């Protein structure tokens, strides 16, 4: 189940796959993949296993192939760090790109990949500095301050926070789930990557937290 929002400049769908879909412009948004994070850990002497980046790329490919967007916009932290840009990742990313020639792919640079521009270009991804305008949306990595997001302006999409929300059930059950944070005209996306973690968002009267689960996207308060 998707959730559809509209801030007055066209519909916006929050997808259970932790992505945002702009149907009119056929634009797909994701944030915080942190590809190659495990490789960066290994380079610094911590034995993190392989597999997470491949799984993240596989999921992204499946989503793109299903939805067939004309543009894919990554809202920053696509790649984790410079030691992440291994030969292996370069090869799989290039191959991923070559298999989808019809999709325009842009990375709005975040704090982790601000120096990865040239490498991303070489893998076939366009880059842009934040804020950038795609599909009528203000695209950035760092979210706007709450007061700014509540003021008037274009629909704003951001990442960086890796937001999570907590759900409570009977018998003192509780769960932490990745979520979208909607405040004013801004949507902060949950992290798309496998090896990312997250931080719980405080409840606030100005922010809606919508959990992204396998059952769909649900309001959690």
């Amino acid at each position, binding site marked *: 189940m998707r959730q559809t929002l509209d801030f007055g400049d066209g519909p916006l769908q929050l997808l259970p796959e932790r992505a945002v879909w702009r149907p009119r412009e056929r634009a797909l948004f994701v944030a915080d993949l942190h590809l190659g994070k495990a490789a960066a850990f290994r380079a610094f002497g911590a034995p993190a296993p392989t597999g997470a980046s491949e799984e993240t790329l596989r999921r992204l490919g499946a989503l793109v192939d299903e939805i067939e967007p004309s543009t894919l916009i990554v809202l920053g932290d696509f790649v984790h760090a410079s030691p992440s840009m291994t030969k292996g990742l370069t090869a799989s990313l290039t191959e991923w790109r070559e298999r989808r020639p019809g999709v325009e792919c842009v990375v709005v640079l975040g704090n982790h990949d601000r120096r990865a521009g040239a490498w991303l270009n070489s893998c076939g991804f366009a880059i842009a500095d934040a804020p950038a305008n795609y599909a009528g949306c203000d695209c950035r990595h760092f979210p706007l301050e709450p007061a700014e997001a509540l003021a008037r302006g274009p629909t704003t999409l951001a990442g960086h926070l890796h937001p999570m929300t907590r759900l409570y059930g009977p018998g003192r059950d509780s769960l932490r789930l990745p979520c979208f944070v909607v405040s004013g005209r801004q949507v902060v996306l949950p992290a798309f990557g496998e090896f990312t973690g997250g931080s719980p968002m405080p409840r606030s009267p100005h922010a809606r937290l919508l*959990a992204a689960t396998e059952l769909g996207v649900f309001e959690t308060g």
Partner: protein
Amino acid sequence: MYDSRRSAAERWLGAKGWGAFPFQLQTWDLMRQGRSGLLHATTGAGKTLAVGLGAWQALALPESRSLSVLWITPMRALAADTERSLREAFDGVAAAAGVSPWRVAARTGDTSTSERDKQSKSPPSLLVTTPESLSLMLSRPDAQANFAGLCAVIVDEWHELVGNKRGVQTQLALVRLRQWRPELLVWGMSATIGNLEEAKRVLLGPGTAEQGALVEGRLDKPLIVDTLLPESPERFPWGGHLGAQMARAVAREIDAHATTLIFTNTRSQAEIWYQQLLKLRPDWAGIIAVHHGSLARDTRDFVELGLKQGTLKAVVCTSSLDLGVDFLPVERVLQIGSPKGVARLLQRAGRSGHAPGRVSRVTLVPSHSLELVEGAAVKTAIAERRIESRQSPDAPLDVLAQHCVTVALGGGFHPEALAAEVRQTVAYENLSDVAWNWCLDFVRQGGPTLAAYPDYRRVVPDEHGVWRAANAEVGKRHRLNIGAIVSDAAILVQYGPAPRGPKLGTVEETFIARLQPGDRFWFSGRSLELAQIRDGVAFVRAAKGGGASPRWNGGRMPLSTTLADAMVEAFARAGRGEYDSPELLCARPMLELQAKWSALPTPLTLLAETLKTREGWHLFVYPFAGRDVHLGLASLVAWRAGMREAGTFSLSVNDYGFEVLSGAARDWQEDLPALIAPAPSLAALTMEVVGSLNAGELARRRFRDIAHIAGLVNAGYPGQRRSSKMMQASSSLFYDVFRKFDPDNGLLKQAEREVLEDELDVRRLQATLERMAARRLDAKVLKRCSPLAFPLMVERFREKLTNESLAARVERMLLQLNNAADA
């Protein structure tokens, strides 16, 4: 030379008015003969002089300046004191003998870089240090040369180390040193524990323990244990509920004595009690203080000095003041809440009447009425000399991996030689080749399968087959992380940001993360307002009153089984109407209510209770087997219930029993006998326990410590910027990634194994199940919560166990959310 030194030592002790005790003379003789050993003596009985002066007499040190004696102390807070009292003794005896005195220095995490440099250039004769600092010294490339003149190692407070991973770290360091110095004299000092012979074996190693001596020190200090009885005891045992009432009683005790130490079980309890006392007696500001391990060094030093000089009237403290600091002028010792164990209470009692020959007295201050029963129990146990044993951990791979990197940095190693060396410790005497090879693979390439960890190298063999650190970064990271104590990520609390004021100490990041700027909290005995968090520092301003108290997650100690058994006996006596101690008499209203609404536990019955509330269907069982075993039992019961019908359970445990709560309907009374039945075989039980482990969160929790010790996550030091933003990942995240992408990882296996051994020890579980089955099941249906069930029901920290799909849980949660929205 020896005779003249001995007579100098005796003259000096005589001049002090003490004289040498027989056990001191015995220790001196043994050390003179070059024998190692363990000295059993309480703090304040003169053990430091027994071993310190023994070394001084036995070792004729060459004029050349090299480090001759290492003195290992488990707490760095003790290092400065030990240094002072040893220096005083060495100066005294040297003057009496007319020789130049030994030079004494201390080296801990608190020692400045310039002081360290000075020690390296001109080593002292004796160095006081901690297990962590010793490992750091072993990781230096010139370690062997630095220890070339080492003659003796002395381990203080060995009872504090023998049963934990820091003790394993010490065992490994000792065999390393003995490799270089085969004649090394090793002496330990231990307070009373149930298995001193075993403790000696762990210290000296299985190969050499035979020749070691066990010296009995003076232990005849008279001991009085009593309880401050509440005037109106509660019938419902709620932690802290008696607080305000008892605070007045505690204040009266403080008033009546010159100096009082008030021991609490947790750091937050210490902060809260300090506030309570100040609220009652504002005039005590400045003459009472709080002391715990998270406070800034300066604050702790100030408090310790105040205690020594007698300028402080009372100090509320945690185990931070359990050890050492000989001859404190403390007149009165109070223990707030459960003593947890007989050995621990004996140790704390020893803080009063500390000088030889004085009476020790400790007074229990119950924080709820069940602790009155504990008080009655601990008195019986002490009278019958029932004291807990402590076992060395068995082959923990995380400590071994850390040691391999230490040795690789400290000169390198040949695998066969190092394997033989570590097998000389009790901890690793049964280390399997499989485990050892895994450990080598782990430090070399991250794991046994090279493919999983491309580009990863920590320790690699050079062209001569000597395993060394792969690069300088490895050493830097390793030295930052060395140690076997894991705490949650700590954040520094400091006045500021402009102007920057004094540092107050550290709190856990999880606590600060919940606060917004402007929020108030209590810390270091003050009310503070959070200004901002920047670069890993929480800047604060002084505030007036109000606010939360931080919680520190570490160090929740289980009640010992020795004490738990004594407790069930006390309940049974009450059940027979034998209210034979003031504590039981005082708890009588609670005990009678328990008997009326349910039943009292006895050694012959197993009490269980069921209850339906708005929260769901509760099952309470009271095996009195200690919180670790209860956690295992609760997981097992929930797992078996989930096998009958899939579900999600919330588990709560304490030292007396456990609760399993289901949000969906369960007929606990009907199912109970099968749920707690012993398994047909150990193998069958193991299958069930592994199943429950995968459905629960225990292994994830355990993995946190392992990931840190093995160098997977970087703890960094409080206040220091984390090494790099790129290197941040929580152990929990690592746990998920390993589970998904490298399920056979050795560290995951270790986490599982540790849970299986500590919390879910299959043999112990089966033994407990059999003991439970041998008792008559006394299953009561409650109309309302009983006094014994109450503390379990209000417990906030809970384990979860589920074998339902995520979707099923989310669906139920959303249903509840929607119902609430519609209501």
